[in-house]
């Protein structure tokens, strides 16, 4: 019977020191982080609609923050998080039906998710600023 080595590093402490960087695990944790970020973003969505229901002064007071630099930074982050979570979510739906499990396919779809999410985010902001 083998005994565990004392002071053996456990999983979180293996990152960066002993584990090689993997795109797949990074995209996986980003999916979770963007998901939680989008959950917090629903407060912003509700606040926007509630201010709209409150009348012109109420809406102007809320919209002032959205158009300020910090509001635009927040909205940009939120829009990319949504596009990333959406694209990677489709990747997950593919895995759910048993498609794309080969390592090469998982990497190809991973790169595709990064590129397509950036294109969709840029497209949304191009629409916003073309107006």
């Amino acid at each position, binding site marked *: 019977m083998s005994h565990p080595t004392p002071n053996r590093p456990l999983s979180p402490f293996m990152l960066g020191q002993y584990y090689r960087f993997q795109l797949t695990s990074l995209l996986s944790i980003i999916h979770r982080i963007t998901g939680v970020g*989008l959950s917090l973003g629903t407060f912003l969505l509700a606040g926007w609609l509630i201010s709209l229901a409150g009348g012109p002064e109420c809406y102007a007071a809320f919209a002032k923050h959205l158009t300020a630099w910090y509001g635009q930074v927040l909205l940009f982050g939120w829009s990319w998080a949504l596009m990333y979570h959406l694209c990677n979510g489709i990747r997950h739906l593919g895995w*759910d039906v048993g498609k794309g499990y080969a390592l090469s396919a998982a990497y190809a779809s991973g790169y595709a998710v990064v590129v397509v999410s950036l294109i969709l985010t840029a497209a949304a902001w191009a629409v916003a*600023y073309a107006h």
Partner: protein
Amino acid sequence: MSMRSPLGRARGLGSAKDGTHHFWVQRVSAVALVPLALWFVFSVARLSGGDFFMVRHWVHAPSVAVTLVLFIAAALYHSMLGVQVVIEDYVGSEGAKIASLLLNKFLHAIVAVSAIFAVLKVALGQ
């Protein structure tokens, strides 16, 4: 040799007595959110720079109000399911876990109902 009873295996509900329900509804809401979220982001992008009256005019259209309510319902339901998994994964102590799971459900219900009520108030007003 399986330790499960034939009845337990046939029901397929497992120790949580819930089977694959959580997994399945998370996927159903995800599929619904693909078109709804894209519609929402690009619609709001087109409203960029618009004032109160322009946004109210947009929400006032029945097709927009209905799609907005569908988006809010699907998004908040999917969000609630996702945050539940995160809590179950990371919150260790039983008391804190149950408290945060309850808070998760209540907060999502409050945000969803408030946002939907706001849409209906604007859509049905005047």
